[in-house]
Every structure is written in C-alpha cells, then in structure tokens.
C-alpha cells in the first residue's frame, strides 16, 4: 500500500516569508496528487490538485505545488505567507490504476503558524 509522508509537522513563519511544505509518497506508478487546507475549526478545503500535464500546479490563494516524479514529491509553496494562512495542510495521494473507489491516502499533516 502506498504511504504519504509530510516531514514537517509544525512550521512557524513570519508574515511575508516564503513557504515550502514537503510531501513524499511511496508509489512508483501513476498517481493523482492533492493538497488540502484545514483552517482552525473548519473542514478540509481543496487547495490544488495534479492529475497530469504541467507538473507545476497553481491553486487558490496564491499556492502552487510542483510534482517531481523522480523524487516522488509534491511540495507546496507560497512566495509570501499571510497571517490568514495559519492552518493545517494535508497532502493526499490517489493511485488510479487499482482504485475503483477513488480512495485517497493522506499524510499526517503540517501545522503552519504565521506570526503577524
């Protein structure tokens, strides 16, 4: 079974700093990749997703992620964070070839705190 690793469990940044959150997965074949964000007390919201094509994906709120197949990575980036980006971020992977249920495997999450 595939696994997803988010190595940074907690990240603290000041406003305007650049952000990069790591995500690595274990499956060697075709994958679909997702980043979700969960603001305090709220449900998960989709930030961006990659299915195929340009490996640099742009999402909402100025976030982007780059799929690097050779590194099994899908890191999330934002050039300049805001206090409102304080949230928990989840990477998720879907293996479409053996997945009739469209199931996702999630990483453990990264808590981001942005100091004003």
């Amino acid at each position: 079974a595939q696994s997803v690793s988010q190595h940074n469990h907690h990240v603290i940044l000041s406003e305007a700093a650049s952000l990069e959150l790591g995500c690595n997965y274990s499956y060697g074949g075709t994958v679909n990749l997702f980043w979700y964000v969960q603001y305090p007390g709220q449900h998960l919201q989709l930030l961006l997703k990659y299915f195929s094509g340009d490996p640099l994906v742009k999402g909402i709120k100025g976030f982007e992620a780059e799929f690097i197949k050779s590194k099994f990575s899908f890191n999330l980036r934002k050039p300049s964070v805001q206090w409102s980006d304080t949230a928990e971020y989840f990477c998720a992977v879907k293996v479409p070839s053996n997945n009739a249920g469209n199931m996702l495997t999630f990483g453990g999450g990264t808590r981001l705190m942005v100091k004003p």
Partner: protein
Amino acid sequence: DAGITQSPRHKVTETGTPVTLRCHQTENHRYMYWYRQDPGHGLRLIHYSYGVKDTDKGEVSDGYSVSRSKTEDFLLTLESATSSQTSVYFCAISESYTQYFGPGTRLTVL
C-alpha cells in the same frame, strides 16, 4: 461546499453505547466516504460507498459499520463506542475524481 451536511456536529457519549453519525448530500454523488481525523495521522478512511447498498471497508474499519439506503444519506455506526473512537469524523463525496469534505462531527467517548 459540495452540499454536504453532517449531523450531529458534536456528540458526547459513554463507552459501550451505540452511536450513529449521518452524512447527507444534495447533489446525487455516487461515491461517499467516512474518515476519522486524529493528530499526527491525517485522515484515515473508515468505510466508503459506491452506490446504494454498496459499501466497502477502508483502512480503519474495525468497530464501525455503515449503511446507505438512499443516495443522499451515508450513515456511520459505532455499535459499542470505545474511548479510542474519540475523534473528529469527516464525510466526503467524490466529484470529478476529487474528494470534497463535510464540516465534520466531533465525537467524544467518555
């Protein structure tokens, strides 16, 4: 927000009691999912459904059962709640191969 509601939003119960959580969707999606969210574990799939009366187990299905008698409703039942089932439970639907989540139910088992 993909038209997903969950009820109740908060529940406190005692060990050994049965608990049923409800997920309701308004957009006729075929696939529905139940996850639990625990610190450090992200979200883990409990059960999912691919149609009325069609369900299958996920990664952490022990102690849980599900039912789907109508397209719009997906019920999660804890037959005899245990303290290890204290968690936040999220329902999700799949649309265009992407999952969208409901607001969650915070369950505390004392």
